[in-house]
């Protein structure tokens, strides 16, 4: 049995030490900041900080990075409501009613309800994580290399098929990610490949520089291109919604928690996807749907609840299987591996102290964020107004520092710049970036499990279809790809550019 109350209590005891509390607080602050600032999201933020965290203990480091991830979900709503600019893609639906409320002079109430809804859904999602993750990890104990390969294969194909209507572009993006991860030495044999005799390439390309480039550098380039100068002033007064409004939103919070959590277990269902669904559902079940879009408070509560429930849910497959559902969790997975921790069922067995400390810290972090956000909303809103010309170069500077501290090599910085250009082109050409990031991070594990499976089966790929669990995963993967293909072939309408998300 991988769950017991003792484990959870032990986790709380660990998470409540001063060191871990401090790093959780740092993570919450940085996360909110990243969420508030447009132009940098949780994936890029975590990737930049990852090399710098090697100097603190693993548990504290992961606690901080997890806090950045869910903290960004809180912060993203602030700019959405106050200035109608979503700090993160997951806050786009929040803009609809949140900004309407702000225009009616009710920005404070909108910010208040988004913090409360985030807290309720985030915490309920954590309860789900606490009980679901060990349960799934138990199942995963029976997994061998073929099952893992099939699982990751399924994860990647779900990310591709859910990434929008552009299936082919998703596949291309994924193969680019795999390709960049193949550079360097073969993990099993040590043979050099794709290095073209270049010594710098022998150690491979760090996934951190790939991600910093793809998300942060390219985002700045997109912003530089437009001469955007938004100056806007909203007075925030009366930051609390009334009790009646909180009660009114109660149903919305619970529904969005359910939607966010269960969809959030699936790879590819990043918060940017589930918030839209939650908003839509809320509009449909409402007795007064005409209020939506005109400042309905449930229209703020639903997406804000959903994105926090989704971010909690994402940790379930991450901890139980080692499968990230989105780019930010992929970076976190990379962080775990940097510390030599292999996520999956073995993590619960061998490092229960670590897993439960991180899970417990997330409960504490949610309380911290509620406390930080309700009274400090005005402060965060002012930070969001830092003009881009000042912000942009500083973000780039952070990227350079992050990339350089990976191995203290200039080479990594150049690689980051290169992937910044690639990321910019991909955004321009409407290529989804998430599959590429997931593929880069998963590639080493994917490859190792593939080679191990093929060793077991003496080179026959049939092993993925004769073992029942692996076969089920492969069938799901193929079904999702064929479904995507079918939709692509059937619709002759011009392809819709997928909303790019950085979480």
């Amino acid at each position: 049995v991988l769950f017991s109350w003792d484990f959870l209590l032990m986790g709380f005891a660990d998470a409540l030490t001063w060191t871990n509390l401090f790093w959780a607080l740092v993570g919450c602050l940085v996360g909110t900041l990243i969420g508030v600032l447009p132009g940098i999201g949780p994936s890029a933020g975590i990737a930049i900080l990852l090399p710098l965290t090697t100097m603190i203990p693993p548990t504290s480091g992961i606690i901080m990075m997890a806090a950045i991830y869910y903290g960004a979900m809180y912060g993203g709503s602030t700019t959405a409501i106050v200035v109608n600019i979503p700090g993160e893609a997951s806050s786009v639906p929040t803009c609809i009613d949140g900004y309407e409320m702000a225009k009616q002079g009710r920005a404070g109430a909108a910010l208040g309800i988004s913090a409360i809804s985030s807290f309720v859904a985030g915490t309920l999602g954590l309860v789900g994580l606490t009980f679901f993750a060990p349960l799934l990890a138990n199942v995963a104990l029976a997994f061998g290399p073929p099952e893992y390969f099939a699982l990751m294969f399924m994860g990647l194909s779900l990310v591709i098929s859910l990434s929008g209507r552009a299936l082919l572009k998703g596949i291309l993006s994924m193969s680019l990610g795999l390709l960049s991860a193949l550079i360097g030495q073969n993990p099993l044999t040590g043979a050099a490949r794709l290095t073209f005799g270049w010594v710098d390439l022998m150690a491979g390309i760090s996934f951190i520089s790939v991600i910093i480039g793809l998300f942060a550098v390219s985002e700045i380039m997109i912003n530089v291109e437009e001469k955007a100068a938004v100056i806007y002033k909203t007075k925030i007064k009366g930051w609390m919604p009334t009790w009646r409004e909180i009660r009114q939103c109660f149903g919305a919070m619970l529904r969005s928690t359910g939607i966010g959590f269960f969809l959030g277990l699936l790879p590819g269902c990043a918060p940017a996807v589930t918030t839209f669904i939650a908003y839509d559902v809320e509009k449909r079940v409402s007795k007064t749907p005409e209020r939506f879009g005109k400042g309905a408070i449930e229209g703020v509560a639903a997406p804000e609840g959903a994105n926090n429930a989704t971010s909690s849910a994402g940790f379930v497959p991450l901890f139980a299987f080692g499968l990230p559902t989105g780019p930010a969790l992929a970076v976190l997975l990379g962080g775990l591996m940097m510390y030599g921790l292999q996520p999956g069922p073995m993590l619960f067995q061998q490092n229960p102290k670590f897993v439960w400390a991180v899970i417990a810290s997330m409960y504490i972090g949610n309380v911290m964020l509620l406390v930080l956000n309700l009274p400090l909303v005005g402060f965060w809103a002012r930070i969001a107004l830092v003009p881009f010309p000042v912000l942009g170069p500083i973000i780039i500077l952070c990227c350079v520092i992050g990339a350089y501290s990976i191995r203290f090599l200039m080479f990594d910085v150049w690689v980051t710049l290169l992937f910044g250009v690639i990321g910019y082109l991909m955004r321009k050409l409407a290529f989804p970036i998430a599959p590429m990031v997931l593929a880069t991070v998963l590639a080493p594990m994917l490859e190792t499990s593939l080679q191990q499976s093929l060793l077991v089966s003496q080179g026959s790929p049939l092993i993925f279809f004769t073992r029942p669990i692996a076969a089920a995963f492969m069938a799901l993967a193929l079904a999702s790809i064929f479904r995507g293909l079918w939709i692509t072939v059937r619709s002759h309408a011009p392809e819709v550019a997928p909303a790019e998300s950085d979480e």
Partner: protein
Amino acid sequence: MTLAGGAGLAAKSWRSGGQDLQIKWPDRSGAIRIAVNLLLLALFIALIEPLGMPVVTALYVAVTIWYIDRKRYVAALFTGAGSGVIVYYLFIRLLELQFPLGFLQR
């Protein structure tokens, strides 16, 4: 085997690269802004080793802010100088990261 896999992937990406693409390229001024910013960034990276991280940081941040928004030269000066100082004291002194110091060599 994995080499072949990589090559196969590359081939696949070349082959389906000819899909119909609707591209929204930036206008001329946008393209110039991007090119100049990229150039500044490349210069920044290239000069880190000869000049040292703190100095180049200050120069890069100040010049880039000034380039993006000419009216903000005061902010540019202060932010630039500030970032240089922060890089030196926070990252190099406090966190002891091994950035090239250039002529500031202890």
